[in-house]
C-alpha cells in the first residue's frame, strides 16, 4: 500500500493543476493516471482559453456571459470564483511558457468565440484512498490518502458513438464517485459540438467560425441567417444553437448526403488560413481527405463535452469528505446547461487549483454551494420504464462510508475486492464487452442526442438495462497480466453503463428545453419550474433522483434569467 497526503486520479489539465496546487501547499502528492500526462485530452483543445485580460473587459462581463451561456443553470458562486480567478490562471499558464499567439506589441492575441461579448479567448491551443491497477504489470495497488483524493478523469464521450472525445474518456471518475456515494449533477446536459468531421468525430475548432468560417446547407444557403436560427450571431451562436440548426437542416432534407453540412473557410484567404488555422487544414486532410483551401469541409454535430458530473462545491469537494472532483468530471455547476467555448480550460486551472489547495489543507473560504442529498429540495418524479441501477446487490466498491473503520483496512479490503473481480474477469468465460459497449453507444447516439423525444429516451433506458444484463456475462478473453487492455476496456464499459444511464434518466426527468437539453414535447424554457439541478444518487445500486435549487446570487448582481438570443 502506498501512502500519500493527496492522491490525484487523472493527469489531464485539471489533475495536473490540482497536483501542483497541492504540492504548493506542501502536501505529498501521488498522481494516478490511465494515460501518460501528455496524452490526456487537455492537449486536444484546439480553440482556446478564456479570461478577462484586457481593458474594456472585466471578470463580471465574463461571468455574465458564462451564466447567460449556461441558460441560467449555473451556480453563481462557482461562476464568480471562476471568472475572478481565470485571468490569474491564464497568465500563470503564460508564465509557465504556453506558446500563445501574439500581437505586434508582444502581448497574447485574443479573438471572438461563440457566445462571448468580448474577444477574450486566448488560444494555443470521506474518502481514504483508492485502488489502482498497474496497466503494465497487471498488479493492483492500494493508495491511501491522508488528506484527500481528487478525481480528474476527464469527459465521458465514449457513452456516445459519435464523439470528439478520446477513447480513454469513459466517465470513470463520474462513475466511481457515483458508486462511492457522491451524486451526479445535471448529467443530461451534454454539449454537442456543431463542427465535427462526419467519419471520425474529429473536432473542427470553433476557431474556424471565430475567424469567419461560414456554414452552408445542400442548397448553398447560409442557413444560420437565411433560416433564422441566429439572426445576430449567425455561425457564432452558442454550440447548442448551431448544432440544432445543422440537424434541423439535415432532418428537413437540406443536409448534404443527408448527413452533414458544409463549413467553408476559403474566403478567408490562404494566408490567413495558414497563419491561424493551419492545424484545421491538416485535420480535414488526414481524417476526411478534404483540402480546406480548395473545398468546404463536411461537418456534423458530435458529442463534445459533459456539463454535468460529480457534484462538488467551489472548493472541489464532494459530499464525501476528502473526495474531490475537478475538470470535466466535476460539476461545480459553472457551465449549467451549456458551456461556452474556451471556458473549459480555465475551469481546469481555477477549480483544479482550488481542489488541490483544499485537499492539501489550505485555509479557504467555506463553500457556498451545498452538496449531498441534504442540499436537495425536492424528490424527483420520473418513472423509468425499467429499473435502473445495479442488477445484483451492491458490489462493495471503494468503501466511502467506512469513516468509523480504520482507513487502511478499508483500502485493503477494496484492493482485495478488486483483485477478486479482476481474477474472475480473467478466468471466467463470457461475452466480449465490446458488444455491450457498442449497444450502449448506439442507443445513446440514436435516442439521447441533440433532439430528445420521450419515447426514444425511454427506449434508450430499456436498451441500457438490457446492456447491463449482458454485462453480467462479460469476461476478458486475454488471460495475460501484461498490458491487458481487454481488461481495462471491460472495466471501463461498466462506467459507461452507469454514466449513460444517468444521462438518460436526467434527460427523461427534465421536461423543458434549456441550453443543450432539447425535449421534443417541451419546447420552452420553464423558469418557474426548472431552474434547478437534476441530481442522481447511486444509493447502493438503486439510483435516486432529486433536485437541487440553482443559486443565481452573484457577488455583483443577481443573475436574472433572460431570453437567450444570439
Amino acid at each position, binding site marked *: 500500500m502506498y501512502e500519500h497526503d493527496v492522491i490525484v486520479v487523472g493527469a489531464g489539465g485539471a489533475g495536473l493543476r490540482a497536483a501542483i496546487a497541492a504540492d504548493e501547499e506542501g502536501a505529498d502528492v501521488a498522481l494516478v493516471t490511465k494515460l501518460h500526462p501528455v*496524452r490526456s485530452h487537455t*492537449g486536444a483543445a484546439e480553440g482556446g482559453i478564456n479570461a478577462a485580460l484586457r481593458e474594456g473587459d472585466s471578470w463580471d462581463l465574463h461571468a455574465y456571459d458564462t451564466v447567460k451561456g449556461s441558460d441560467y443553470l449555473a451556480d453563481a458562486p462557482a461562476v464568480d470564483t471562476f471568472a475572478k480567478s481565470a485571468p*490569474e490562471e491564464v497568465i500563470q499558464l503564460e508564465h509557465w*511558457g504556453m506558446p500563445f499567439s501574439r500581437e*505586434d506589441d508582444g*502581448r497574447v492575441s485574443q479573438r471572438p468565440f461563440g457566445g462571448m461579448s468580448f474577444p477574450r479567448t486566448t488560444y494555443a491551443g470521506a474518502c481514504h484512498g483508492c485502488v489502482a491497477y498497474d496497466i503494465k504489470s497487471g498488479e493492483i495497488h492500494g493508495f491511501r490518502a491522508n488528506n484527500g483524493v481528487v478525481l480528474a478523469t476527464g469527459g465521458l464521450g465514449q457513452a456516445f458513438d459519435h464523439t*470528439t472525445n*478520446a477513447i480513454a474518456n469513459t466517465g470513470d471518475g463520474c462513475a466511481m464517485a457515483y458508486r462511492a456515494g457522491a451524486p451526479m449533477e445535471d448529467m443530461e446536459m451534454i454539449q454537442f459540438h456543431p463542427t465535427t468531421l462526419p467519419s471520425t468525430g474529429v473536432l473542427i475548432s470553433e476557431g474556424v467560425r471565430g475567424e469567419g468560417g461560414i456554414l452552408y446547407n445542400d442548397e448553398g444557403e447560409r442557413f444560420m441567417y437565411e433560416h433564422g436560427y441566429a439572426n445576430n450571431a449567425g455561425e457564432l451562436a452558442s454550440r447548442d444553437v448551431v448544432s440544432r440548426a445543422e440537424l434541423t437542416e439535415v432532418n428537413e432534407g437540406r443536409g448534404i448526403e443527408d448527413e452533414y453540412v458544409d463549413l467553408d473557410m476559403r474566403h478567408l484567404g490562404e494566408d490567413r488560413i495558414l497563419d491561424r488555422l493551419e492545424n484545421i487544414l491538416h485535420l480535414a486532410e488526414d481524417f476526411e481527405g478534404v483540402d480546406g483551401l480548395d473545398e468546404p469541409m463536411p461537418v456534423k454535430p458530435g458529442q463534445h463535452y459533459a456539463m454535468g458530473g460529480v457534484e462538488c462545491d467551489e472548493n472541489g469537494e464532494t459530499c464525501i469528505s476528502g473526495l474531490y472532483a475537478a475538470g470535466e468530471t466535476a460539476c461545480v455547476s459553472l457551465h449549467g446547461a451549456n458551456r461556452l467555448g474556451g471556458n473549459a480550460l480555465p475551469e481546469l486551472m481555477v477549480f483544479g487549483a482550488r481542489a488541490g489547495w483544499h485537499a492539501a489543507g489550505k485555509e479557504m473560504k467555506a463553500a457556498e454551494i451545498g452538496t449531498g442529498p441534504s442540499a436537495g429540495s425536492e424528490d424527483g418524479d420520473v418513472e423509468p420504464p425499467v429499473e435502473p441501477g445495479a442488477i445484483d446487490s451492491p458490489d462493495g466498491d471503494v468503501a466511502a462510508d467506512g469513516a468509523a473503520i480504520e482507513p487502511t483496512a478499508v483500502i485493503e479490503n477494496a484492493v482485495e475486492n478488486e483483485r477478486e473481480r479482476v481474477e474472475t474477469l480473467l478466468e471466467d468465460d463470457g461475452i466480449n464487452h465490446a458488444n455491450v459497449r457498442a449497444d450502449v453507444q448506439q442507443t445513446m447516439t440514436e435516442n439521447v442526442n441533440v433532439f430528445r423525444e420521450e419515447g426514444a429516451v425511454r427506449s434508450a433506458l430499456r436498451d441500457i438495462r438490457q446492456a447491463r444484463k449482458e454485462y453480467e456475462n462479460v469476461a*476478458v478473453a486475454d488471460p495475460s497480466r501484461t498490458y491487458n487492455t481487454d481488461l481495462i476496456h471491460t472495466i471501463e464499459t461498466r462506467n459507461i453503463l452507469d454514466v449513460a444511464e444517468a444521462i438518460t434518466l436526467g434527460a427523461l426527468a427534465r421536461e423543458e428545453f434549456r441550453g443543450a437539453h432539447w425535449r421534443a414535447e417541451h419546447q420552452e424554457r420553464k423558469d418557474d419550474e426548472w431552474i434547478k439541478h437534476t441530481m442522481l444518487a447511486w444509493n447502493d445500486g438503486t439510483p435516486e433522483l432529486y433536485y437541487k435549487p440553482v443559486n443565481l446570487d452573484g457577488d455583483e448582481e443577481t443573475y436574472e434569467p433572460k431570453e437567450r438570443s444570439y
Partner: protein
Amino acid sequence: MSTRIEQRETETDEQSEEQAAESLGDRRRAEKRERKAEQEAQREAEEATLDDEETVLLKVFRYDPEVEGKQEPRFDDFRVPFHKGMTVLDALIYARDTYDSSLTFRHSCRQAVCGSDALFVNGSQMLGCKTQLADLESPVRIEPLPHQEVVKDLVVDMEHFYDQMHAVEPYFDADELPDDGLEEQRQTRENREKVKMSTRCIWCGACMSSCNIAAGDNEYLGPAAINKAYRFAMDEREGERRKQERLRIIEQEHGVWRCQTQFSCTEVCPKDIPLTEHIQELKREAVKNNLKFW
C-alpha cells in the same frame, strides 16, 4: 455451449476445500484455452466468408511474454472489411473488437493529438489514426515501433524515450517574470512563429524509432528531445542565462553532435515538425555560442 457451462459449475462444486486455489485457477485457464481454440476456428470460418474485394489483410505482430504460444513473436492475419476513409487504427480496432479482444495496442484520441498509437506500418513509422488504409499496399504489415522493447503485441516500452525527453528539462523556466502577477511576458510574433512548429510534438516517439543513430547509441538524446530543447532554447521569454544552460545540455557528447542528418525523423514525424532543421540550427547556435569564448 450451455452444457459446457453447467458441467463446469458442477465440477467447481465438487472441488474439495483443501484443493489449492492455484490449481483451480490453472484448470480454468486450461479450459479457457480450449474454448479459445474453438472460437479461433469459428473466427476463421467467419473470416473466410468475407469477400476478398472489400477487405484488407492485416499482418499483425503478436507477442506476449506470459501467454503460451505468444512467447515467440509471430504474425497473425486479420481480414477486415474496408470502407472509405478507414484508418489503420480503425482496422485494428475492428480486428480487436470482432476477432481477438486480446490484440493489444495503445490509442486514445483518434485525431493525432495524443501520440499513443505510433506504429511501424509497412516498414515506416506512422500514427495508426492518421494513416488511411487506402494509401497503403496490401497486405498491411503492422509492427511495434523498432528500436524499443516490445511489452506486448504492438505496445513498446516508452520509458527510455520519456527519460530522454525529461533530460532536456522540458518545462518553461524564465530568468525573470513580470513583477505584476497579472502582466504577461512579452513575446514577438516572429519568435512565436519560430517556436510554433516545435511546440507541436505529441511525444509519439516515431522519430526516435526511425533514427539509426538512436538505435546504435542508447544515450543519444534523439530528435524529439532535441526538438523539445529547441522549443525552449529559442523561446525569447526564457532569457539568456537559461538559454546557456539549455545549450549546454544539448551540447553534451550524446546531444546534437550525434545527429548525422539522416532526415528519417523529419520524414516520419506525424506533426510535420522540421526536426533535422531544428537540430542543425541548434548545432550552429552552439558553435556560434562557443566561438564567443575562444
